[in-house]
């Protein structure tokens, strides 16, 4: 149940903003964070960290009914599970090193699979800076011996900073005088000075807010498919290595697909328009996919889900004494959702500690970050639109492959296409930056040259030991 005091709570929608100065966190203020995924735990961590720097003593209750120590759906937040290169660096700079128990595999390259051939794109620094992780404690029936959930790790960080973990299911948020009341399924009910909604995109709470009549629109969502294959470390080392395998295949409604190696398992993340059995059958029948598995046989998956993904932010993602972060607020299109959760968590925590918790405060200090992400997502839509065209045009696929293979083969050659693909697949750079790079004359000239070279007969790449494997598989017909 959600009952908020009328539309004026959603300041930006009503235009009736309350002054920010009277709604600030003071010593003894209480904050409820609903959801201990990356956004909720990182918000709690940074809020308490920032409050500590100005000797502000606040209480944080972090609500999460799930135990991330459980394997399978009971402890999982249903996600592909990749921490991007840029986020690994940001977290390390913050002093948050991801331990081995959390990193299922450090990835050092992306391998692009198309019907015209494959190419491996090495990380720009030739270093393992992408982390394949589990949001829960591994797939159904896995052995939770050495591994640790990424979400559980962040939850522990928040707890060590002083957040109180509350294992309760929140069923309602409502206004109570000038504070917010949180109601739980077991009858627990308490008031807080700030409520932070970090309950993901599938949350019932946001649906309730939307249906309560407030001028609020929850995020747009698309359905994805995620499954886990148990292959074993040795087989993974031989077949997939420390590379994330992405597919640009000419299959209707398929946006993007990736195989992410992790410990004994491989995660498949599949995005598309209305993902269904037919789409999956076509995907699993593709030789480019089958060739990634030993003997060309797709094993039976041990765990699967159809989680929804945020494809357009909540509007507005705040109210008086309430802010929405992570997937239930604004996130990046298709990529680096955990990185977007980190940015939102910090921006919301900064606003709450240093400015205030009114709708006006969040509009002034938190909304710009959300708007920046939304604007960047527009560039992302253009880029993914172009990628869809490439998926459907064989001559374009051959040009892209030819250019990437030739760049990967010569270390001194500018890696224009490789960098564009790397940043597009990994989400390491803002989409705007990637888009502007594709407008540079040198990039366009190179692409035109390779479109020609890639579509005439003698297109094999010479002097490229690293791409020898790709060279063999490069299709010139």
């Amino acid at each position, binding site marked *: 149940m959600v009952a908020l005091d009328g539309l004026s709570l959603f300041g930006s929608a009503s235009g009736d903003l309350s002054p920010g100065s009277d709604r600030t966190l003071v010593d003894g203020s209480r904050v409820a964070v609903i959801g201990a995924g990356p956004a909720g735990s990182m918000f709690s961590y940074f809020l308490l960290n920032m409050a500590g720097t100005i000797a502000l003593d606040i209480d944080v209750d972090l609500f999460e009914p799930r135990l991330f120590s459980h394997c399978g759906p009971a402890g999982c937040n249903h996600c592909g599970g990749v921490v991007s290169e*840029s986020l690994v660096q940001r977290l390390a700079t913050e*002093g948050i090193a991801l331990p*081995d128990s959390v*990193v299922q595999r*450090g990835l050092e390259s992306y391998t692009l699979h198309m019907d015209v051939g494959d190419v491996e794109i090495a990380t720009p*620094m030739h270093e*393992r800076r992408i982390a394949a992780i589990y949001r829960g404690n591994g797939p159904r029936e896995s052995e939770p011996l050495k591994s640790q959930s990424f979400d559980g790790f962040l939850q522990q960080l928040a707890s060590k900073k002083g957040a109180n973990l509350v294992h309760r299911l929140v069923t309602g948020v409502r206004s109570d005088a000038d504070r917010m009341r949180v109601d739980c399924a077991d009858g627990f009910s308490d008031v807080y000075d700030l409520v932070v909604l970090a309950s993901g995109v599938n949350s019932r709470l946001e649906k309730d807010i939307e249906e309560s009549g407030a001028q609020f629109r929850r995020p747009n969502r698309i359905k994805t498919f995620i499954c886990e294959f148990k292959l074993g470390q040795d087989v993974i080392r031989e077949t997939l290595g420390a590379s994330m395998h992405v597919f640009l295949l000419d299959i209707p409604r398929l946006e993007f697909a990736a195989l992410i190696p992790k410990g004994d398992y491989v995660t498949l993340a599949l995005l598309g328009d209305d993902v269904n059995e037919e789409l999956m059958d076509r995907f699993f029948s593709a030789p480019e996919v089958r060739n990634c598995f030993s003997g060309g046989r797709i094993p039976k998956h041990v765990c699967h889900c159809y989680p929804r993904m945020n494809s357009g932010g909540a509007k507005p993602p705040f109210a008086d004494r309430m802010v929405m972060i992570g997937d239930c607020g604004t996130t990046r299109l298709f990529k680096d959702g955990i990185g977007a959760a980190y*940015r939102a968590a910090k921006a919301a925590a900064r606003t709450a500690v240093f400015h205030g918790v009114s709708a006006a405060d969040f509009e002034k200090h938190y909304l710009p970050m959300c708007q920046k992400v939304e604007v960047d997502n527009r560039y992302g839509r253009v880029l993914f639109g172009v990628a869809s065209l490439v998926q459907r045009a064989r001559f374009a696929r051959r040009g892209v492959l030819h250019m990437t293979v030739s760049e990967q083969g010569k270390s001194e050659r500018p890696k224009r296409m490789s960098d564009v693909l790397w940043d597009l697949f990994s989400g390491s750079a803002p989409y705007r930056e990637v888009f502007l790079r594709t407008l540079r004359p040198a990039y366009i000239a190179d692409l035109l040259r390779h479109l020609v070279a890639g579509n005439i007969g003698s297109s094999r790449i010479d002097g490229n030991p690293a791409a020898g494997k790709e060279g063999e598989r490069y299709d010139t017909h």
Partner: protein
Amino acid sequence: MSSLGKHYEDGEVIVHQGENGNCMYVIQEGTVDVIASADGRELHLRSLGANDFFGEMALFEGETRTATIRSNGPSQILTIDKKSLLGGIHEDPSLAFRILQTMSYRIRDLTERLARCEEET
């Protein structure tokens, strides 16, 4: 050894004093020694361990590396790109807070050591 970053063997030099720097480093696992060379002599300034960072001065000053960093035993080191770090600080200045804090500790430590040297001489 940690799954992330780059592996260095015992005694391997990660950063050379005097070279230009375009990245910072964070130790994922292991220990490194910070060594300054002057007049042909090597001076061990300090040792750094997991989660410590080095190489930040060259990024902010645009000058050359002021010390050599050598792996003491096997270590795993994560590189932080200049563009990623400085771009991140422009976007979110609080990202520099921990760096400032650590640099402040190091200045305090050097000041105390300098004072002790003055007393001894």
